[in-house]
């Protein structure tokens, strides 16, 4: 079946229109170039940024000096960086972290100038000073939209980029499909910025929107870039596991830290007394909390849907009603869209069944502080990048990351494109991808994309959730190899619809998801310790003697190649080279009243 092919030529192609992608586009436009930005959905109507229940971090001194907030001038970008390293369990990339901390305030100021609301200013667990400006993802995206006004940007919505084009080891563009017409699209570009978010959709319970299926990580891996820290997907604790319609919703987690919610197992016991007795529900960090919840459920103390319970019922209604009304979190949630009363989810009346939900990708495409990958012409920004957060992320840092690195990658890609030659694409590569992309549509019968999706999510949850161990990881890899042989090459959509074929999109996304799943499993197997967001039941200590290393992932002739590389820093002090029990908070955290 021959399909229409459309060809676009641009200086820089940006894949993804969330916080990072749109900020990159603005920066490029400032440099006098006209970027082309593609998105699987619609600008401000897709991606993770807009869903953020948000705090956005900057050094406390800048919060005071730039915005008049109750910040502490004792804080510096270096102190912020140190906290990121402590939280990231020293897996972070020092150059990337320093770029993040030094640029946060400058780019957040612009967002506020473009109209982003400041609802509150908070100190979240893990930060030694208050650094979090509270707002909403919606407010941030609307501000970015205002920032794009007056910019020359070419928009390609309803467009899925599926593969990068390379030639002589450089990226020269990409190919994809127009979802509205099923037309094949070729993008010739001097540089490509991947701003495609994470792969949280690999897990059955997630806070992430539909599009986050690891497309960018897959494409970069295929094109010869390195991935890093892929074994550390971040789970957000206390997200709803039930009802089905609200799976992955995170408000019980937010209530736990803002309103003193309790986490109970099915015996009514506050199990955090065992896992984090000093900080408890209100002061704990996401890594410990997710592991605690997962263990409680795994050991049979959970609820009917695999979670534990979050409850505000011990708090008198008078307090709930008064206190909650004052809180931006509550207002932003309840006056958002779900009517909690209508859904029988009134916190005064019910406890919620909750648990860890896949939330954010700590690792990703390896970049330097300019957003460059090892492949000339290829950049990455936002959640898709690795090295900023190490093995675990501080609250509020994800949106700062996409803003800062969207701008940095956008600016650097623009500079590169100005002096780069017009790319020559490899037509045989384009033709090969053309055949691959239409296979699921052309094939009459074969494996079902949604069944394959379900299988991947089941094994992700079972084997590479917050709790892992060797036999599970081996079983996971076995299942993956089976799917690589049986399901993946035989995907056939039941629908051959030409206009907006969702099933076809799911089939194409499955390729990326399976590759990412394999990488997580293999990297987890290699790392014989527990650290940050990853916990191994068979190696429960953190091994700073042998494992103060990042696992770098590369595609070597179609095989996943892993390399453990020692962490190197110049100003951040590394911990003593010894084995320690998992999760001892290294300093006591005092929440300011």
């Amino acid at each position, binding site marked *: 079946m021959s399909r229409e092919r459309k060809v676009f030529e641009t200086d820089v192609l940006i894949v993804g229109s969330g916080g990072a992608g749109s900020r990159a586009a603005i920066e490029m436009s400032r440099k006098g170039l006209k970027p082309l930005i593609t998105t699987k959905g*619609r600008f401000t*109507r897709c991606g993770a940024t807009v869903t953020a229940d948000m705090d956005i971090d900057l050094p406390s001194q800048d919060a005071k000096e730039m915005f008049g907030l109750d910040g502490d001038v004792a804080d510096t970008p270096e102190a912020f960086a140190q906290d990121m390293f402590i939280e990231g369990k020293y897996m972070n990339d020092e150059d990337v972290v320093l770029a993040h901390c030094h640029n946060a305030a400058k780019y957040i100021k612009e967002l506020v100038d473009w109209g982003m609301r400041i609802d509150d200013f908070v100190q979240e667990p893990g930060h030694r000073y208050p650094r979090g400006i509270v707002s909403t993802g919606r407010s941030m995206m609307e501000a970015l939209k205002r920032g794009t006004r007056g910019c020359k940007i070419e928009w390609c919505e309803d467009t899925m980029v599926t593969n990068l084009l390379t030639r002589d080891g450089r990226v020269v563009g990409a190919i994809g499909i127009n979802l509205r017409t099923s037309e094949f699209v070729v993008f010739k570009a001097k540089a490509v910025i991947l701003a495609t978010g994470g792969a949280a959709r690999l897990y059955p319970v997630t806070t992430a929107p539909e599009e986050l299926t690891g497309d960018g990580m897959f494409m970069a891996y295929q094109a010869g870039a390195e991935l890093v820290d892929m074994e550390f997907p971040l789970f957000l604790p206390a997200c709803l596991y039930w*009802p089905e*319609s609200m799976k992955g919703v995170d408000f019980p987690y937010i209530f736990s830290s803002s309103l003193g919610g309790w986490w109970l197992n099915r015996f009514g016991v506050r199990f955090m007394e065992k896992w984090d007795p000093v900080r408890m529900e209100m002061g704990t960090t996401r890594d410990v909390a997710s592991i605690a919840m997962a263990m409680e459920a795994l050991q049979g103390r959970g609820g009917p849907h695999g979670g534990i319970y979050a409850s505000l019922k011990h708090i008198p209604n008078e307090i709930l009603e008064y206190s909650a009304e004052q809180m931006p979190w509550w207002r932003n949630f309840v006056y*958002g869209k779900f009517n909690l009363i209508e859904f029988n989810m009134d916190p005064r009346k019910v406890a919620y069944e909750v648990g860890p939900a896949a939330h954010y990708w700590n690792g990703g495409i390896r970049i330097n502080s300019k957003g460059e990958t090892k492949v000339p012409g290829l950049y990455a920004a936002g959640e898709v990048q690795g090295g900023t957060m190490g093995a675990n992320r501080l609250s509020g840092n994800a949106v700062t990351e996409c803003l800062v690195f969207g701008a940095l990658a956008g600016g650097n890609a623009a500079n590169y494109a100005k002096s780069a030659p017009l790319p020559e694409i490899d037509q045989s590569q384009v033709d090969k991808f053309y055949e691959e992309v239409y296979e699921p549509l052309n094939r009459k019968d074969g494996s079902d994309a949604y069944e394959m999706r379900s299988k991947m999510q089941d094994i992700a949850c079972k084997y590479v959730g917050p709790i892992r161990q060797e036999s599970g990881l081996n079983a996971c890899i076995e299942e993956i190899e089976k799917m690589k042989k049986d399901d993946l090459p035989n995907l056939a959509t039941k629908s051959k619809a030409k206009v907006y074929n*969702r099933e076809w999109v799911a089939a194409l996304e499955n390729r990326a998801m399976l590759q990412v799943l394999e990488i997580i499993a293999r990297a987890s197997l290699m790392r014989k310790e527990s650290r940050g967001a990853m916990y191994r039941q068979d190696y429960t200590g953190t091994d700073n003697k042998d494992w103060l290393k990042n696992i770098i992932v590369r595609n070597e002739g179609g095989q996943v190649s892993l390399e453990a590389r020692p962490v190197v820093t110049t100003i951040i002090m590394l911990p003593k080279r010894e084995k320690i029990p998992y999760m001892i908070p290294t300093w006591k955290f005092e929440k300011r009243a």
Partner: protein
Amino acid sequence: MTEKKVIRLQIYRSLSQDEEDEAKQGEYKEYEMPYIDQMTIMNALDYVHQNYDRSFTYYKSCRIGKCIGCFVEVDGKNKLACTTLAKDGMKIGPAAKRKVIRDLFIEEAPR
């Protein structure tokens, strides 16, 4: 709630899968499905797509009331599919005052 409940919804379907439905010439089809507690219209759309007709199409992104992308017309009013409880007998069509592309998938207003 242990009894097996079902609900029936009427959902707009364009006539063609391969061409855009510019003139909105489709019709409402009835679909019956198992009812689960606190089921939303989005849950219903997913059920129809996965179990009855994979060509059935609609916009879905955050599915939790944040992206504001899944507007549909329900009994005369535009509502988000993902945060509106599904009720037996509901009539669901593409969001009013928007150009229909196919089924419930519409063109966004210029932004």
